[in-house]
């Protein structure tokens, strides 16, 4: 277990480093949100949570994962490449002309299920997918990762009502709760709290975790569903820009591209943190 956790930690560091290089090379990207969700995606793809296979990305019984916070495509592509869904070298084409690695997730990329990026789309789609699996009596599940600011979109709450009504216990919504949206604190723009209570009131089983703690994430994501007959919401409390001190928790880093000096400092800091702890 300790070995596995160490591996995950290294994997998360690798993803963050490669992700930052990708943003630097492309001169585009959503640095803060990518780093915020890096541990969640690490655990999903490398912690044995998602039942997906790079050799069979279209296997009918695969789990479906929807990256509703599609602006964090840089993180998704980096994770998928490192997980073997396409060659890592292709990451250098991120947002370049005619690349399939578009600025928001594209189904031309293996294991991307839907073209997300307009906010508030992932949860309704995942709800439909979970319903299909339930109707067919198949064991696969639908996972969706949403941003927290994204929950200001009403379509999420439409889907939340329907998913509870249909008792979709094979639906898991993870909220990347970093408390920052592009222009500032979510609570100062259109407050989400009490967020867990909102989800509970909508009929969901809710757990709150430290979204950077692999043990906590694994604990919940490998014991699903949280409650029989209910969809699960995992509120992952995170820090936008996590892992790089001068990016962390700054709204300005929503889509700021690091300079070369910043990139080098960031890579150094990530390496150091991985070795020390």
């Amino acid at each position: 277990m300790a070995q596995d956790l160490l591996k995950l930690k290294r994997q998360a560091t690798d993803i963050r480093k490669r992700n930052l290089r990708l943003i630097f090379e492309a001169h585009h990207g959503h640095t803060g949100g990518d780093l915020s969700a890096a541990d969640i995606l690490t655990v999903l793809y490398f912690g044995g949570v998602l039942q997906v296979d790079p050799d069979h990305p279209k296997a009918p019984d695969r789990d479906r994962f929807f990256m509703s916070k599609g602006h964090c495509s840089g993180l998704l592509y980096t994770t998928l490449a490192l997980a073997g869904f396409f060659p890592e070298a292709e990451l250098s084409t991120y947002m370049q002309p005619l690349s399939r690695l578009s600025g928001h997730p594209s189904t031309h990329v293996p294991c991307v299920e839907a073209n997300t990026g307009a906010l508030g789309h992932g949860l309704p789609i995942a709800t439909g997918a979970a319903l299909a699996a339930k109707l067919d009596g198949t064991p696969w599940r639908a996972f969706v990762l949403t941003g927290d600011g994204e929950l200001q979109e009403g379509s999420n709450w439409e889907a939340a009502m329907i998913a509870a009504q249909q008792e979709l216990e094979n639906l898991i919504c993870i909220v990347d709760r970093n408390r920052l949206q592009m222009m500032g604190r979510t609570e100062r723009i259109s407050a989400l709290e009490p967020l867990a209570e909102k989800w509970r009131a909508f009929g969901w089983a809710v757990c709150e975790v430290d979204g950077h703690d692999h043990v906590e994430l694994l604990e919940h994501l490998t014991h699903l569903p949280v409650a029989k007959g209910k969809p699960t919401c995992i509120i992952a409390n995170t820090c936008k820009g996590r892992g790089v001190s001068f990016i962390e928790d700054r709204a300005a880093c929503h889509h700021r591209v690091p300079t070369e000096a910043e990139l080098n400092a960031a890579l150094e800091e990530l390496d150091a943190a991985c070795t020390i702890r």
Partner: protein
Amino acid sequence: MSQDETIELHDCRNAFASALEALAERDPRVMVLCNDSVSSTKLTHFAERYPDRLLNIGIAEQAMLGMGAGLAIGGKLPFIAGAACFLTARALEQIKNDLAYTHTNVKICGVSTGLAYGPLGATHHAIEDIAWLRAIAGMTIIVPADPVESAQAVEAAAETEGPIYLRFSRMGVPIVHSPDYQFRIGRAARLRDGSDVTLIACGTLVPRILEAAERLARQGITARVLNMATIRPIDRDAIVKAVAETDAIVTAEEHTIYGGLGSAVAEVVATAGTRFCPVGTLGIPGVFAPTGSAEFLMDYFGLTPKGIVNAAMDLLARR
């Protein structure tokens, strides 16, 4: 009693519902989502017969269209049925991204289209739906004219991979197609031939252009009549032929003249026409319709055989 009153009229929603039920019997993937619109889509019988395959998700169009994409991603063949005014406008971004851009195999079935909800007012009229969806890459748009075509359109939609919008009125229409008619997506049906003018319509306006052609014939003018049931992809060949072989084109639709059938036809005439051919577009002229029954509003906007005849005569006077 005039001759017209003896003609039997049909509600295309019934043909849609029967065809969908027959399809569900054969294809276990078929699944229906409704936004509390089970009775207005005429799917009550379907719901009784297949209680697990018709889901009333409540009044939530955005989530409903998104769920359609998810169902398709999960291997289902979803038909989403409801009043066209809400299905299209409320969930337009879901139609663009989740259905068209992601290219999911979802069928949208808009009912009570055009001015059908007449006296309920402009909130309930669906006279912009074709324009909105026609602008979206990868969308197929079908406006059947009668029960024969409605049933076949459901079949064709099921056999064709990708997002398709089917538009069913609730106004009574006569049968215009013979039982051996074969609907094909993207192919106009020539219901009558003539060499002076081509009349092109879709949906409820098809019997009206047929009647207009009859009246023109009495004045010595021969009209070609095309039922352009597929608005996208439009049958370019049929339009180019009409330009070459007739002297004017009149389009008629229960929709705004901005961005619908008339616009689609005019785009082809302007870009691919081989000679000058004036086009008259009949429809709702860029206004919200006032209160009144659908029949009243059709008269009000000149969407009548008389209005179509007048438009044709005006254009032919320019020859």
